[in-house]
């Protein structure tokens, strides 16, 4: 059972930035640079540089020295910040792009799903798209025929299967597309962040489907930002950072390494160098931090306790009305809510030049458990001009300690929803019989 079906050794991928990364070269550029190249090279040789080095203008390694094995039946999550190389790794393993160095050996039929609905054509009907998309994903026609009814049932769009897809809602398109993908039966399944689509109920259905894929002894590589999904689906997680493997081990270890590493988004961000700080002509960001009631910087907070988000900024020009604000996102990227400064002392009041620190307090029993990402910004008003807007400036974890005085009460299982407020509940009780029924009988008597 435990023999490697994916062997990755020293995989590396480099991209050129600068000249060659310009989106589309024109032939003229290429010709002129080709004509100039010998002279450039000669010039560098004269300066005593190696010819090899002359070629390396601006190179970044999207992936470097990545080695790992995956055994048959393993479900491996791949996590990391944006730009850490996750997608590049999946693209290489799916053979979409070639590595620059190293090699990978894959035993078995690979199905890769880097995007839901690749190749869907708006003018074609749902039925036609199932076949087209299936073929694109590498299914045989007989295979699609066999699974067609199952796919349609899974997608829940039976009624519209012969309608052109352009008349579908985006949710319906996604469901149909995922239904096709979910019925791909490769020995090795490679999945990129595709579960971040559709409504929550359908997402769960897809997660369950993927889980069953894993249980059938198939090997799955799964990239996601959705940490609960990663920990639920994968026993092993590889944490990538800057194109290298930072951590490779049990899911919870790698996930917490990711969340706690200073490499990811942390609970405090400082911009000591004004030149590098985000900002506009009027205002500049100095610091953002997550604080507890005690005023300490914390990266996790009890679900029942309030949490403060603090922003320090400078005003560089007088007589502007400033509006500091935050946006809160969960790990699916869903925006939970926004909040802007309502401090009566400064509301609609021009601010003199100087240093400011504002803080917003979110009450306990508001956020759901999981990671929360905070975007921070300042807008000058009338006219409304953003001075800066820092995405994922800070992040923190909301921890549910399973105490019965939270909104969870005595329920120990998964709870849905992007927020988890604590409400008051009340119950009326009548000892013998059904209250509503009685009152309706009374009503009938009146009639």
């Amino acid at each position, binding site marked *: 059972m435990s023999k490697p079906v994916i062997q990755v050794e020293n995989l590396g991928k480099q991209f050129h930035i600068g000249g060659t990364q310009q989106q589309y070269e024109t032939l003229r550029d290429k010709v002129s640079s080709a004509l100039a190249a010998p002279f450039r090279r000669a010039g560098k040789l004269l300066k005593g540089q190696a010819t090899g080095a002359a070629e390396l203008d601006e190179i970044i390694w999207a992936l470097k020295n990545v080695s790992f094995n995956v055994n048959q039946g393993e479900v491996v999550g791949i996590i990391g910040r944006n730009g850490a190389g996750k997608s590049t790794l999946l693209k290489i393993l*799916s053979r979409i792009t070639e590595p*620059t160095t190293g090699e990978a050996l894959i035993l078995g039929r690979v199905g890769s799903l880097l995007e839901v609905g690749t190749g869907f*054509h708006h*003018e074609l009907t749902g039925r036609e798209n199932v*076949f*087209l998309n299936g*073929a*694109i994903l590498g299914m045989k026609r007989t295979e699609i025929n066999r699974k067609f009814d199952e796919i349609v049932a899974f997608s829940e769009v039976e009624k519209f299967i012969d309608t052109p897809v352009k008349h579908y809602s985006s949710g319906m398109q996604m469901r149909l597309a995922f239904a096709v993908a979910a019925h791909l039966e490769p020995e090795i399944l490679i999945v990129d962040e595709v579960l971040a689509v559709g409504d929550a109920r359908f997402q769960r259905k897809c997660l369950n489907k993927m889980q069953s894929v894993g249980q059938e002894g198939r090997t799955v590589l799964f990239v996601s930002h959705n940490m609960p999904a990663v920990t639920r689906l994968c026993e092993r997680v590889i944490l990538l950072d800057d194109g290298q493997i930072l951590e490779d081990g049990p899911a919870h270890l790698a996930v917490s390494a990711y969340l706690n590493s200073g490499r990811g988004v942390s609970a405090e961000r400082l911009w000591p160098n004004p030149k590098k700080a985000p900002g506009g002509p009027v205002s500049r960001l100095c610091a953002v931090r997550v604080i507890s009631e005690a005023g300490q910087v914390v990266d996790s907070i009890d679900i029942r306790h309030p949490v403060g988000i603090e922003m320090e900024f400078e005003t560089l020009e007088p007589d502007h009305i400033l509006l500091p604000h935050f946006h809160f996102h969960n790990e699916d990227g869903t925006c939970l809510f926004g909040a802007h400064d309502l401090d009566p002392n400064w509301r609609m009041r021009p601010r003199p030049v100087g240093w400011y620190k504002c803080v917003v307090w979110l009450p306990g029993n508001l956020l759901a458990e999981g990671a929360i990402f905070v975007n921070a910004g300042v807008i000058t008003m009338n006219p409304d001009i953003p001075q800066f807007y820092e995405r994922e400036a800070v992040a923190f974890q909301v921890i549910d300690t399973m105490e019965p005085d939270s909104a969870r009460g005595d329920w120990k299982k998964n709870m849905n929803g992007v927020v988890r407020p604590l409400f008051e509940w009340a119950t009326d009780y009548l000892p013998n019989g059904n209250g509503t029924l009685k009152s309706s009988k009374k009503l009938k008597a009146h009639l």
Partner: protein
Amino acid sequence: MISKEQTGQPPTLASPPETSEHSHITLIKPSQGWVSLQFRELWEYRELLFFLTWRDIKVRYKQTVLGAAWAIIQPFFTMIVFSLFFGRLAQVPSDGIPYPIFSYTALVPWTFFANGLNQASNSLVNSANLVKKVYFPRLVVPFAAVISGVVDFVLAFIVLIVMMLFYGIVPTANIIWLPYFLLLALCTSLGVALWLSAMNVQFRDVRYTVPFIVQFWLFATPIAYPSSLLSEPWRTLYAINPMVGVVEGFRWALLGTDTAPGPMIIVSSAVALVLLVSGMYYFRRMEKTFADVV
């Protein structure tokens, strides 16, 4: 983790011991220099080729008022214009055949060639989302673009049959060669399109070049005039343009022109084959950069 001993000998990776259990073994590594054409893999993806062709056919005339009539309008109206200006006004000779059918017989394969070239040259860039997200032999894309034009060809060809009836022209027995000439047009179109589509990924100039190429090529091909204007050996040399062989072949097979195209067709076929094979190699060589650049 791969142990030190294994890393020391990459061949162990390349030839795993448990090969028999897995039908698919994929070794991913940087390719160098010229790569093989991998016909076997292309064959494995024949269903995708089928579906992409089918999609192109289905979608081509969606949301147009005249629909598939466009397949006929294009060569037919060109024929009318040619007949007026070249046939009537300029009195261009037409090998003793009524000028309209003389030019239309050439325009049918020409339109197939030109549209195929046009569609296929832009096909990779138009399928950028596919190329970036799914693996398949990229050759499938331009192949499908050219092959889907066969439907248009058939429609235009039906009009040609009607015209032959109208002019009372009975095709010669050489008509059995017609599929070969169609194949020749397909190979030429594909051969050039493979070069252009691969270049188009990196240099978007190609998109603007194709209409020029097609326009010049139209006049470099004996469509408005007969190749019999040239004397041998220039006529055979002229067939270096493979479309010369196609067009004269069509006339020979259908209209019975006595342009005896034997040597011309051999020359045209050879050139078309060179274009196709070189195009495929060039395409395969550039293929690895497509997903990064497109």
